[in-house]
């Protein structure tokens, strides 16, 4: 089945055409600009994987301090407590807030880490001949691109808490350095996902070994 479907796939590139990614106008391969919208026409972005890897690395670099440094600085009665992302999740679970803990854990740990893995895997896969189903790869890519923005939920939580809880001596919450790092990491991974040229998925497909 997969095999049969794969055999039917014909890329525009294979047919000597290029599609404008802005307006969908099909043009001849080699044409510089779209006839309709004058957007730059590129059949395959040659720097796509470079950009992916660059953003990916930047995201990883930002993600490390985001987990090491405190996300929240909670001051109650002169007593300052710092909590990192994982520390905060553990604290939530300790207090029995399993739902909130799960959400925070999912948004702050699972999604970013999953994104890193998926993007790296995709980028790695499309750079060489592979036998994976391109449809599945595309699905992965779309999921990653859609879900990546939800990692920002943690940053929003910090921002809202910081804005709301400002009672001087009694209780004050300030964002830690990790909040900035985490936001940067999310931004970088989103950029990495966007830099990925999904058309590359179709280029290096190979027939199954069973063929």
């Amino acid at each position, binding site marked *: 089945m997969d095999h049969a479907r794969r055999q039917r796939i014909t890329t525009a590139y294979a047919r000597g055409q290029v599609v404008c990614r802005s307006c969908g106008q099909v043009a001849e391969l080699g044409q510089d600009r779209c006839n309709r919208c004058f957007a730059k026409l590129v059949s395959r972005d040659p720097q796509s994987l470079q950009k992916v890897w660059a953003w990916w690395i930047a995201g990883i*670099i930002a993600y490390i301090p985001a987990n090491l440094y405190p996300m929240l600085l909670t001051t109650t009665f002169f007593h300052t407590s710092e909590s990192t992302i994982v520390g905060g999740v553990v604290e939530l679970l300790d207090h029995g807030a399993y739902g909130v803990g799960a959400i925070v854990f999912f948004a702050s740990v699972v999604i970013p880490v999953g994104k890193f893995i998926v993007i790296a895997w995709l980028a790695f896969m499309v750079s060489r001949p592979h036998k994976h189903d391109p449809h599945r790869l595309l699905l992965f890519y779309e999921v990653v691109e859609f879900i990546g923005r939800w990692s920002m939920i943690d940053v929003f939580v910090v921002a809202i808490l910081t804005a709301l809880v400002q009672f001087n001596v009694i209780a004050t919450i300030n964002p830690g350095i990790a909040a900035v790092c985490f936001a940067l990491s999310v931004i970088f991974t989103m950029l990495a996902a966007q830099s990925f040229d999904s058309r590359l998925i179709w280029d290096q497909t190979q027939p199954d070994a069973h063929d």
Partner: protein
Amino acid sequence: MTDQDLPSPELRQTRLPTLSWVWLMPLAAVIISGVVVWQTFADQGPVITLEFPSASGIEAGQTALRYRDVQVGLVERVGFSEGLAAVEVDIRVDKSVAPYLDTEAEFWLVEPEVSVRGITGLETVLTGVFIEGLWDQVIGIPAIRFEARESAPLALPGEDGTRVTLVAPSAGQLAAGSPVLFRGIEVGRLDEPVFSDSGSFVLVDAFIQAPFDQRITTTTRFWDASGFSVSLSTEGLSLNLDSLASLVEGGVSFGTFVTGGARVEDGTQFDLFDSESHARDNALEGEGGTELDLAVFFPEIAAPITVGTPVRYQGFRVGQVTDIIGQVDAESFDGRVGVLISFTVNLRRLGFPGDADNEAHREELTRRVRDGLRARITSVGLLAQTQELELAVLPESPRADLEFDASGVPLIPPAPSATTDGGSGIDDLMDRMASLPVEELFESVIDVLDGVARLVRSPALQQVPENTNALLVDARTLLSDAELDQALADVRTATAALSGLVKDVASSDGVAALLTALEQSDPIARDLEAFAATLPGLSDDLVAITARLAQFPVETLGEDLRTALATANAILSDPAIARIAPSVAANLTTLEALLTDLEAQKLGDGLSSTISAINETAADLQATSAQLPGVLNSVDALISGAAEVDLATLSMSLDSVLQGVSSVVSAPGAEDLPDSLNAALTEFAAVMAELNGAGAVDSLTSTLASADQTLAAIESAAAELPALVSRLDALTVSIASAAASYDEGSPLYSSLLRAMRDVAQTSEAFRSLARTIERNPNSLLTGR
């Protein structure tokens, strides 16, 4: 057109891919991270390790290290040293202060602390404890390991001053933080008292703050100002209290009594005296000179000398007793125990040359003993209760030489105790007290007490309170009873009524009229009396008349009577006579009525008995009555004589009379007689009728009777008046005394008061009435 037809130059993917600018982002991230990490590590100071006995409140990442209240470090780790002997606290110290953390640095934990001195470290209640560090401003040998102090050091960072060491026999009330006072003002603090190396005394570090430490010189004396001291002496009772704080927490004071001392350095040692007076004595007597150990042996058990007892020479304190041991007298060999008193003296104060050596001192001492230097026990104090050792020069004492005991200490010869003065006086006093008959006195007292106890235990006495109680209850019931009020009200009403009555009596016209009537009845009574007095004479006259009548010539009278009768007949036959008869009848009737009235009047003879003034009249009337039978006898004889009279004669007499009458009648004017007689009789009848009709006699009788009653009543009343007045007086007095014992303002009291007033008014009215009557009895009759 196929893929193969594509012009090859247009295929850009065949070109080497150029590096994207995006690679700058991870590069920048790496660089920034690297810079941050490097900077963090570069700014970090060294880690020092403090050892605490316990990590009370120290938290990693929280507890700060402060120097002059500025945070200069943070605790990174709290752990244990090798073998869990202590708590190790690793502190990351700021780079700026790290070089100053040399071996001299001190660290201690600042915790909230509540003591008699107040509350300190209160800020740590909220922020948590912190570690305070103290180090000087000189970079010394660096160190990274320190042992923390138990408490804050004496001089806090930034405090200048002088630190001296006080030497005391015992710590007493002194404790870390106790104040150092100068003239009552706190100028410093004490450190924790510690033992000296030998353990025989206590060392206390004292820190005196900067401007005040200039007061401390080598002549300064410190004394214990803890608590308060009371001393009783011939100067009186004195109470010393330096400050309330020092009373609670102890403290030391210092004073510089002698000028000329030099400034002191840190660590100078001072003795701590137990009182200001001792310190002052010590300062005034001065120090210096050689101390010499001496001893004296008293064969007898000496008076209570204790270690530390002053040794005086000519009144000055030259030393003190250092030891007292019992020792068998080696000379007497009788086994009696004497006392060897060791003491030290300051030779300079004894007047020994200051620069002499030991041998010279001994020679000097030997010379002085030969001159009479002796040691003896004296008594000082109010009751000679304090014993002191005195070195006295007694030239007349038995010759003695300076000896030395086994250890070479010079033995001063003893002299008899000089304590007898005060002591013997007290002994005499005690003897006299002992000879008092205390036992007898106490026996008597016991007897008395027994008697008292019996009396108290007697049932009768024990019932007294009950009876008293019952009495009081009764009295209260009585006083609160409404009947008493009622009774008093009745008394009031009665007296008021009485008063009104008396007033009425005094003022009414009735009495006056009565008195007037009585007064007027007086002459009547007198007239009656005179009349009665004439009655016997009247009777005599009647008798004489009757007797003469008996001798009357009746014979002729009969004749005359006949004539008269004839004449009378003629007269009677006269129509005029006929007219007379009704008049006579009327007259007779009137006379009869009058007589009846008079009879009735006579029957109401109470007139004589009632009025004391006319008693005599009654007696006279009685006498008159007694003579009446005689009169009647005379009349009887007359009548019987008349019966014996010859009627003829009588008729003749009568005839003659009648003739006379006839002649009279026939005399001119006789015809007028009946008319005149008639008129006279008519008038008489009218008078009688008037007399009868007017009822004057009745009135008089009734008037007199009632006057009598009234007078009797008044008499008896007047007789009782003084008694009544006196009774009222007594009543008033008793009521007044009773009322005085009652509470003012109560209803009872006011009722009583009103009653008393009324009674007083009544009695006053009575008194005035009685006085008026007494002074002017006429007023009873005439009115006022």
